[in-house]
């Protein structure tokens, strides 16, 4: 038997949230809808306001204005202990004077759950996070990964309507972090709770989320599924923050887009006239021989700066004719390696028409 969260998962409607600390605006007119059972990630650099938003959701920080509705019920003025929201803290915030069992039983004790049921539910929660039999351990006897699991069990044992996670994996080492990402993702699939997850790690966000809200300077820049966010970034910030990007200046005039004197082939309609930036991902670029200009490939003449061998792949830094640096990455297949250029050599880079993404030049 699993905990039954799926039925109780509720949507969250966040609208018009304002938060200022003195004269400094942290969040400005922020609105966001999270569907019931969705895994939504707030992704952004430090200082982008993502943790503040999470704190406002949990009720630890008071907003200056705005509304938070959980399943239609307004909770913006509700004290934290009545919100029924589970939270996993960055440093776990386990109670050091209680053992694992009492930590997980804590929310049940506050809800006056009977001793027998408490024991049963704690047991199930421990089982769920693969810590069966560790109930009597003291918190300081646990490893980082185990503490993380206890914090998680404690946050879901009382079947909250919503689970919030504040960079819960940032204190773990890389391999354990990647393992826990998959585990958290699976746990979410099984339990189906509405989850708001905060991280500054774009790879973690892409791995785990149904949707990602990219935050910058207190605003949401773009909110989309990971694939869409990566393939179709709408702003220069999003393109730069998610994945690697080089930016190539292009100009839109008379309904088409020009890179220097070449007309760009693209599958989307040209944006308004003026200067724009083409987002160039390292893996979307490829080396082409001058001859095969046929088929929707855009060609960028360049000079090789440096070629770095990385085992499974190589990275080629190239300089365009206008002096701009672009990066090309490809796997070390023998056919690619055969035509690998030497530093200083002139080359032609190709980018497919459907891979051309333009963002405003801010």
């Amino acid at each position, binding site marked *: 038997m699993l905990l039954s969260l799926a039925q109780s998962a509720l949507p969250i409607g966040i609208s018009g949230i304002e938060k200022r600390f003195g004269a400094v605006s942290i969040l400005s007119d922020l609105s966001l809808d999270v569907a019931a059972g969705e895994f939504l990630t707030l992704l952004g650099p430090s200082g982008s306001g993502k943790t503040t938003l999470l704190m406002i959701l949990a009720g630890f920080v008071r907003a200056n204005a705005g509304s938070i509705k959980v399943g239609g019920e307004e909770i913006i003025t509700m*004290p*934290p*202990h009545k919100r029924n*929201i589970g939270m996993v803290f960055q*440093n776990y915030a*386990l109670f050091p*004077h209680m*053992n694992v069992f009492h930590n997980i039983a804590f929310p049940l004790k506050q809800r006056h759950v009977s001793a027998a049921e408490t024991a049963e539910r704690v047991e199930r929660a421990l089982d769920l996070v693969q810590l069966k039999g560790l109930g009597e351990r*003291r918190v300081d006897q646990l490893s980082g990964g185990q503490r993380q699991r206890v914090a998680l069990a404690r946050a879901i044992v009382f079947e909250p309507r919503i689970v919030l996670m504040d960079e819960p994996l940032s204190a773990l080492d890389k391999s354990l972090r990647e393992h826990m990402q998959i585990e958290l993702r699976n746990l979410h699939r099984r339990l189906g709770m509405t989850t708001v997850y905060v991280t500054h790690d774009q790879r973690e966000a892409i791995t785990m989320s149904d949707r990602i809200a990219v935050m910058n300077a207190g605003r949401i820049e773009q909110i989309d599924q990971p694939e869409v966010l990566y393939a179709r970034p709408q702003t220069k910030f999003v393109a730069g923050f998610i994945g690697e990007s080089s930016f190539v200046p292009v100009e839109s005039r008379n309904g088409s887009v020009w890179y220097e004197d070449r007309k760009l082939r693209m599958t989307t309609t040209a944006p308004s006239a003026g200067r724009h930036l083409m987002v160039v991902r390292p893996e979307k670029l490829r080396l082409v021989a001058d001859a095969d200009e046929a088929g929707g490939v855009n060609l960028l003449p360049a000079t090789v700066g440096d070629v770095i061998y990385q085992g499974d792949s190589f990275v080629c830094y190239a300089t365009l004719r206008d002096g701009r640096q672009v990066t090309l990455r490809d796997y070390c297949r023998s056919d690619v390696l055969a035509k690998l250029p030497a530093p200083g050599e002139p080359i032609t880079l190709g980018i497919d028409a459907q891979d051309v993404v333009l963002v405003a030049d801010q």
Partner: protein
Amino acid sequence: MSLASASLDHASRRDGALNGDALNADARREARGMLALLSPGLFLVFAVIIVPIGWLFWLSLFDESGQLSAANYARFFEQASYIKTFVTTFKVAFTVTGACILLGYPLAYMLSQLPRRAASICLIFVVLPFWTSVLVRTYAWLVILQRKGLVNTWLMDLGVISQPLPLANNFAGVVIGMTHIMLPFLVLPLYASMKTIDVDCLRAGMNLGASPAATFRQIFFPLSLPGLASGVVIVFVLCLGFFVTPALMGGGKVIMWAMRMEQTTSLYSNWGAGAALGVVLLGVTLALLGLFHWLLGARATGVWSRR
């Protein structure tokens, strides 16, 4: 043995390790150097702590005629005044410690919750009395608390009381004066330990459904206990040996251990009896410290986490 020692056998004779002798000699030299650096401190401890305590103990074994006897210790059981002094000392120490907890815990809690800047300003007021002589502070309390002192005059002027309250030259006076002096010794360690309590633990408590009061009771208070315990130990032990304030504020009616010692040595010149008092006080204090240590040790092994 490592490859290096196998191929370079000639380089070492005793334990077969490369440069083994030189490294051992280096370790011994470092240990000698450390000991040399420690020696002034060790000498000081020996000269001003070990020797006087040994001497004190030695003195306590001789009666007034210089004969080796247990008379000085037998007195504790035979003379009612000794027992009374002993009881009074503990009564004062317990009451003052209790009063310090009642006043100090809320104060330390408030300080720990204040923003850092405001807290450091308030801490100055907590520490301020340290910069004034105990004697001056005690006389100040006498002025405030005596029959025609500030408190009684004001209360009578306001019509709250018709007779002056007996606040000085008695047990109450001793407790008030000593509480004032002891309070910082409780507040400072308590404040320091409260500052180390993770704010996220309190947030987690509320997040998990505990009201602010329940969070305080179930999380903050238990986590502040180690700090409280160390404050209590300091205050209690200092109270046991306190002299100036009870001597002045007690009006001769409240005789504590240290005052008894002073009487015995300076009034009756009975050094053996005075020394025995000192030895017993030291013994009781060490026993109490051991008890507290044992209680704190029990906490560390998780006794407190079981309910």
